[in-house]
């Protein structure tokens, strides 16, 4: 999965067809696993996630992405697909697209084909955006496929430039130690927020342009180790993002955000499209305990039952095949 810092929302085609969209994000130590098992002797399709489905033909599946992927690849029988994840969906850390990228990688391997990071990202984006019709962008699929700290630039012709941020381990640890990710306890689907946001792109074009243009500055501050400055930039980005759509924030999220800022955070934002999920803060280590305590108290006061901190570590790896027992892979 991933956390994104600035530029979210500029990965939607209505924006990047007019002006280059940019997002800076890093992959983190939370994973989605997809397991595929060939059942040559059983002519069914099974999908196991939060629910379990067994059907005669993929067109009968309720899981929209598995259904669309199998139909598109013309895989109609003899397959079990199961998924596992470190976190439930809707935390704003890109788990849905991490799932899609893993699913695509796995289904290609199942067919004896190896695909690279870019192809996995593009195929997963096509699955989610074109085949399933979700109103989302492409940043999450790229983040999941490539792994590491990157800037993704979305060009008018649909191509995506991937620029790795070559951050040494000390700078990465230093920044990571200043981050505090707090789950609001409420899952949300990006699509619900992004549908309204998409409709507002014309009106908010200048704001989105500023968000895209702030990405190189974020990179510069990151490489310089100006963590306080990064906090300030996240805060500015969050203030801008809230104007994009009425449901990016709500009173509960605002309450948590203010509590964090009031107790010493340098800045922060909601992870993902907004409307729930996680609030992330940049906090000086000396204030960490105080900010954490304030968030817990505020969450409890707001009746957020499942609210809690989610510890995160940055990682470098992207989508991988962990195990392949299929002899069909051409070696």
């Amino acid at each position, binding site marked *: 999965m991933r956390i994104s810092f600035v530029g979210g929302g500029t990965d939607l085609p209505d924006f990047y067809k007019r002006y280059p969209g940019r997002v800076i994000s890093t992959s983190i130590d939370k994973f989605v696993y997809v397991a595929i098992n060939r059942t040559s002797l059983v002519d069914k399709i099974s999908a196991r996630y939060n629910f379990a489905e067994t059907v005669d033909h993929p067109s009968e599946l309720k899981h929209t992405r598995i259904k669309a992927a199998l139909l598109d690849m013309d895989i109609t029988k003899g397959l079990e697909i199961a998924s596992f994840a470190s976190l439930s969906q809707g935390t704003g850390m890109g788990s849905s697209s991490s799932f899609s990228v893993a699913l695509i990688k796995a289904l290609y391997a199942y067919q004896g084909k190896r695909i690279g990071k870019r192809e996995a990202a593009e195929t997963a984006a096509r699955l989610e955006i074109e085949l399933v019709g979700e109103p989302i962008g492409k940043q999450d699929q790229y983040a999941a496929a490539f792994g*590491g700290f990157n800037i993704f630039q979305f060009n008018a012709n649909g191509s995506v430039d991937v620029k790795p941020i*070559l951050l*040494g381990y000390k700078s990465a*640890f230093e920044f990571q130690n200043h981050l505090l990710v707090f789950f609001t306890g409420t899952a949300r689907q990006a699509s619900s927020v992004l549908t309204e946001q998409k409709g507002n792109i014309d009106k908010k074009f200048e704001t989105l342009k500023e968000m895209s243009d702030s990405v190189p500055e974020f990179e510069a501050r990151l490489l310089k180790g100006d963590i306080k400055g990064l906090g300030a930039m996240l805060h500015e980005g969050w203030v801008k993002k809230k104007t994009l759509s009425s449901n990016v924030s709500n009173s509960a999220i605002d309450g948590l955000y203010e509590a964090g800022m009031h107790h010493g955070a340098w800045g922060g934002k909601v992870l993902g499209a907004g409307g729930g999920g996680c609030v992330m803060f940049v906090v000086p280590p000396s204030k960490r305990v105080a900010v954490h305590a304030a968030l817990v108290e505020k969450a409890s006061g707001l009746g957020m039952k499942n609210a809690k901190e989610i510890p995160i570590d940055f990682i*470098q790896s*992207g989508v991988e095949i962990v195990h392949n027992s299929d002899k069909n892979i051409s070696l």
Partner: protein
Amino acid sequence: MKEFIRDFAKKVEVCLEDLPTEEIAKAINIIQACYERDGRIYIFGNGGSLAIATHWVSDINKTIFSHHLDHPGRRFQAVRLPSTESEITAWANDVGYDMVFAGPLRNYLQETDVIIAISSSGNSANIIKAAQLAREQGVPVIGLSGFDGGELNKLSDAKILVKTEKGEYEVVESAHGTIMHLITKYFKDYFDYLVEYRAAK
């Protein structure tokens, strides 16, 4: 004689000043990702480059953890190819010298792995065969080359080229030795830091 010594040192110095820092950083990221997914690092080369490969394997497997030999955490796993003399001679004698790396590599290679190929000319047939095999299997290639980089530089994901006149093997191999130690030191420091960081947590 002093002039010769100074001239040689100067040539190496020029190469070191112009090290492809971005490509070396990319290589570090590739190795980092391989460590995270518990993959293996296969290193190989011919002649002097094979000596660098062997040295590097030892550094990755042991030197990086020198301060923490009792630490129970995950270690790097590096393997010099081929791992036995019998395999070199078997492949060379029975099949051809161009298969001494790709032949054994095919037995092991998993998508979670990384290869580090070392070739001053960047054009040794056996190195190219192995790099092509890795590419076909979606395995990242870190290529250390010299002269104009040759075919290896084109096939690599991290293109670590030490640009020199053709035939400057000694200069290229000296710079490759430095790059090997530089990357080793990075991860040695990283691992020291990681152990302290986890202990503090």
